[in-house]
C-alpha cells in the first residue's frame, strides 16, 4: 500500500509542477513514462521507428496540453499521457492513411531471452511462443489490443484503464475478458508444434 501511495503522491507532484512550467518535472515525467509510452506505441503501430517518433510527439503534446488546460479531468499523469498517446496514434493513422491493424510483415521482432541455463530447444520454443503472441496481438481489434497492453504488459489497474478510456470499470473487465479470449483463439489456431515443424522443413 505504501508503494502505491508514494507513487501516487509522486505523480501528483510531477503533474502540479508540470502545470507550473517546471522543466525538471518534465524530465522526470519523461524518465518515468518514456518506456511505457514507447511500448504502447510499438504494439499499436508495429514499427520501432514510428513508435520512437510518436513518443516525442506525445510528450510535446502533453506539455502544451498541461500548460493550456485546467486539468480538472486528469486524475493521474499516467492516464493523461495515455489519452494523449491514443489521440496521437489516431492522428498518425489519419495522416498516413493507414488501417488500425497491421500486416504480419510489419509485426515486431521477437524478444531476445538471454537465459543461458536453458538448452537451445527450450529457448527456441520460448522465442517461438513469444513471437507468436506478438504476431497475433497485431491482428486483434484495436480496443482489444489496447486493454491487453495496459493490463498485462503495462500492469495498469482496472480503475486506471477505466480512467483512460472513460469507460466504467465493469465494462473494462468485460472487454478484457473478450480480448484475452480473442487472443487465445488466434494463438491456438496455429499451435507452436506446427510452427516448429514447418521451420525444420
Amino acid at each position, binding site marked *: 500500500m505504501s508503494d502505491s*501511495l508514494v507513487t*501516487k*503522491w509522486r505523480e*501528483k*507532484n510531477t503533474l*502540479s*509542477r508540470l502545470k*507550473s*512550467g*517546471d*522543466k*525538471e*518535472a*518534465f*524530465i522526470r515525467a*519523461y*524518465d518515468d513514462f*518514456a*518506456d511505457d509510452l*514507447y*511500448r504502447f506505441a*510499438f*504494439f499499436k503501430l508495429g514499427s*520501432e521507428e514510428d*513508435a*520512437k517518433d510518436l*513518443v*516525442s510527439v506525445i*510528450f*510535446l503534446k502533453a*506539455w*502544451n496540453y498541461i*500548460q493550456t488546460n485546467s486539468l480538472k479531468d486528469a486524475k493521474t499523469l499516467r492516464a493523461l499521457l495515455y489519452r494523449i498517446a491514443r489521440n496521437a496514434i489516431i492522428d498518425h493513422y489519419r495522416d498516413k492513411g493507414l488501417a488500425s491493424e497491421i500486416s504480419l510483415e510489419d509485426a*515486431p521482432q521477437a*524478444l531476445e*531471452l538471454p537465459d543461458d541455463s536453458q538448452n537451445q530447444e527450450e529457448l527456441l520454443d520460448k522465442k517461438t*511462443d*513469444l513471437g*507468436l*503472441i*506478438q504476431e497475433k496481438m497485431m491482428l486483434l481489434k484495436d480496443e482489444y489490443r489496447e486493454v*491487453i497492453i495496459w493490463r*498485462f*504488459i*503495462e*500492469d495498469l489497474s482496472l480503475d486506471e484503464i477505466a480512467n483512460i478510456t472513460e469507460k466504467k470499470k465493469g465494462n473494462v473487465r468485460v472487454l478484457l475478458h473478450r480480448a*484475452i479470449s480473442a*487472443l*487465445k483463439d488466434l*494463438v*491456438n489456431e496455429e*499451435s*507452436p508444434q506446427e510452427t516448429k515443424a514447418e521451420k525444420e522443413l
Partner: protein
Amino acid sequence: MKEREILQQLNNLRNIRPDDAWKQNQRSLLLTQISNSAPKELSSWGNFVIVFKNSVKTFSQPAVAFASFVCLLFASAVFSHNWLNSAKPNDTLYIARVISERVKLNTVVDKDSRQKLEAQFAAEHATDIAEVLSDPKFNTPSNQGEVARLNTSFNQEIETVKTRLSAITPVATMTPAKTGEEVISASSGKDDKGVELYIPAKAVKTSKVEPIVLASSTASSTPEKNIIDQAQDSFKKKDYQKTLDNLQKIDELIK
C-alpha cells in the same frame, strides 16, 4: 496454449524498451523544445506549496487518514510512556508524568501493590529531584526559589516513601501457644471430640505480629529506614551524589 501461458508471455513483453542512446538524445531535444515556452524555473517556495498541497490531497483520503490516526495513537501510546518518564521536576511535562502515574495507580486493585507502586514513584521523584539539584547549571544563586521548592518536594517524597512502605500489610506469624492454654483451631470452634468450645476472651493468646515489608523487615526498623534516613541526611548536607546512591538502594529494595 493455455491462458496462463499467454498471460506469462504478455508479461515478458514488458522487457521491450527503446535503446538508451536514443532516449538520452530525445531527452535533450525535447528539453530544448520546451525551454522556449517555459523560461522560468519553479522557485523553492512554489515547490513547497505544491508538495504540501499534494500531500494534503493524498493523505486526506479516508482510509489513509484513518490508518495514519491509528498509527499515531499507537506510536504515542508506546513512546509517551518512556518520554513522560524521563520528564524531570523542572520540566513543563512533569505534571503530565505525575498524572500518568496517578492513572496507573488507579488501575492497581491490590492495596499492598498500590502502596509499593506509590513508594516506587515517590523514590523515583526523589531521585529526579536530587539529580536536578546536583546540576550546577540549575542550582545557582539566582535560582534559589526553585531550589527551595524542590527541597520541600524532596522531603515530601521521602516521607511518602516511608509511610507507604510502612503501610504495606505485614504477613501474620503465629507464635506457639504456651502450655496450659487452649489452642484455638483455625478450622472450627470444636475440640477433637466434636464439642464446641467456649473460648473466653482472656484465654486467647494472640501472637505479636511482626509486620513484614520488603523481604522480611519493616520500614520502621533497619535497614530500609536507615537507608532512607541516610538519604535525607545527605540531602540536607547537599551531598547529592550520596543521596542518589542511597535512593538507588531504596529503589532496588522496593523492586
